[in-house]
């Protein structure tokens, strides 16, 4: 019940986030120069929440009025109508509204809000409709090493490095030293508090590896999302969807006969109701469960990033009403407080995702005692059981 309540809360939050996204997505704003107005702040936040094809640490405007970006370009790998096309993201010159056209293999590409469009043959510039959608271009499959992919790679390597070192320590000593001493209780925590109680003593071993990987993956990516490096990996719907689908595949593949029986042909229920229950159960198992997983993580991280950036923006937006010191102070205090909450949320969401994955897997592999199954339960019996 609590889970449903939570899901509902997160769903409501997501809807709110989407509503606000649609408002600021309309204001086309080139990323450059000072950000002072509310609309500019909204555009900046929406720009940050999206994946980026460059790795930019910070940007500034030089004395000559030229926009400078400190960072490095990342490789673009596109699957166009003419096959694979690769080039460096620096060729777009940090342009994100479709004004810079890159020509490769006789094809023209434009980048609009971090999405790559391939222009129709003969077109030389992107045409926009009233809602600022490109009319003469189509999105291409974008396998680029984006900022999120860099984040995934870095965190993956970091995890691999840390835990392989921890694994090696056990070869020479019983108790790890140094950083391994920090990691060991976390591993034990995931195993003993998440995997074991939710999956059950008999089956948990098989799934502990997946749960550990997902837990540390989400947690560490949530944490780097809070650093000024500006990663937003777990706020990418593609990433959370991928994680949720992994969990779905695992519990669908490892589901035992009882699990499928309770979905497709619920025992102990009148025959006529069984098909209706089957539809509900199928929707619940294959759509609602993974959707709740992916939306919860995505919405929480997106909301966190939005709130932090909005609170930082108080500094600029309320400069006139509160004065420089007042606006800065207010912004500082609020964003520090929210940062503490976000550090908690970073852990909490990793925990919830892992815990729910374990729970769903546990439901799929649970072994029922067959005594109460497969007989038509009389309503009177049920009542007498309760009384």
């Amino acid at each position, binding site marked *: 019940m609590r889970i449903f309540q939570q899901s509902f809360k997160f769903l409501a939050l997501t809807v709110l986030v989407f509503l606000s996204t*649609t408002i600021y997505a309309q204001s086309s704003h080139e990323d450059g120069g000072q950000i002072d107005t509310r609309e500019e702040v909204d555009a900046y936040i929406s720009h940050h929440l999206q994946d980026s094809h460059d790795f930019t640490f910070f940007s500034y405007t030089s004395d000559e009025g030229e926009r400078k970006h400190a960072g490095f370009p990342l490789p673009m790998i596109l699957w166009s109508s003419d096959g694979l096309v690769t080039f460096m993201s620096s060729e777009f010159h940090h342009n994100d509204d479709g004004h810079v056209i890159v020509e490769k293999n006789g094809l023209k590409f434009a980048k609009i809000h971090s999405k790559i469009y391939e222009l129709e043959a003969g077109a030389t510039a992107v045409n926009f409709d009233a809602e600022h959608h490109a009319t003469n271009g189509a999105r291409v*499959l974008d396998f680029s090493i984006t900022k999120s*992919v860099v984040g995934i790679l870095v965190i993956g390597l970091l995890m691999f490095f840390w835990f392989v070192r921890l694994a090696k320590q056990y070869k020479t000593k019983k108790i790890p030293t140094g950083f391994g001493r920090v990691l060991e209780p976390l591993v*034990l925590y995931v195993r003993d508090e998440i995997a074991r109680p939710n999956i059950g003593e008999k089956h948990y071993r098989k799934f502990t590896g997946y749960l*550990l*990987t997902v837990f540390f993956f989400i947690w560490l990516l949530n944490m780097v999302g809070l650093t000024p490096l500006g990663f937003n990996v777990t706020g990418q719907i593609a990433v959370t969807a*991928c994680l949720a689908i992994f969990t779905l595949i695992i519990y669908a593949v490892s589901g035992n006969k009882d699990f499928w029986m309770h979905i497709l042909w619920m025992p102990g229920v009148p025959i006529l109701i069984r098909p209706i229950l089957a539809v509900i159960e199928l929707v619940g198992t294959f759509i609602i469960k993974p959707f709740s997983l992916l939306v919860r993580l995505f919405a929480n991280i997106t909301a966190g990033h939005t709130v932090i950036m909005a609170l930082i923006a108080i500094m600029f937006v309320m400069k006139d009403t509160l004065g420089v010191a007042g606006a800065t102070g207010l912004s500082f205090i609020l964003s520090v407080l929210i940062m503490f909450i976000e550090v908690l949320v970073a852990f909490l969401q990793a925990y919830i995702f892992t815990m729910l994955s374990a729970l769903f897997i546990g439901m799929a592999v649970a072994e029922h005692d067959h005594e109460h199954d497969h007989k038509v339960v009389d309503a009177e019996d049920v009542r007498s059981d309760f009384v």
Partner: protein
Amino acid sequence: METLLNDFSPGLFAVQTVLLLLLIFLMVKFAWKPIISSLTEREEGIQGALDAAEKARREMANLQADNQKLLQEARLERETMIKEARELKTKMIAEAEAEAQVQANKMIIQAQAAIESEKKAAMAELKSQVAGLSLEIAEKVVRKELSNKDKQLELVESMLGEATLN
């Protein structure tokens, strides 16, 4: 929802799927399996050590109880032995006393008997000697007395006189 779908990047999804699969595979093979097996091994080791310690403690307690029991038994045995020895001692003393008494009595009786018989013998001897002596004296006296007639007559007279008096 439209924004949600619009923001969904199939390319990123594909890259993430490949990387996550790779990460899960590598982590399970090189990190989680050895870590979990080492942890399980360690836990089992600790459990084993605790069990062994508990067992040793119990054995120690058993041993101590046994020792106590043995000591108690030894003490009891010693006491019975001492008691028995004491009883034996008194019994022996009593027996020896009784024996001694009996022996002494016997000796006394024997001695008395011997004394009696000696006395009797001595008396008999004495009697016989006295009788012999008296006979000798009497002989001598008679011999002497009867050497003259008168004196013989005189004696007869006195003896006759005495005999009538008796």
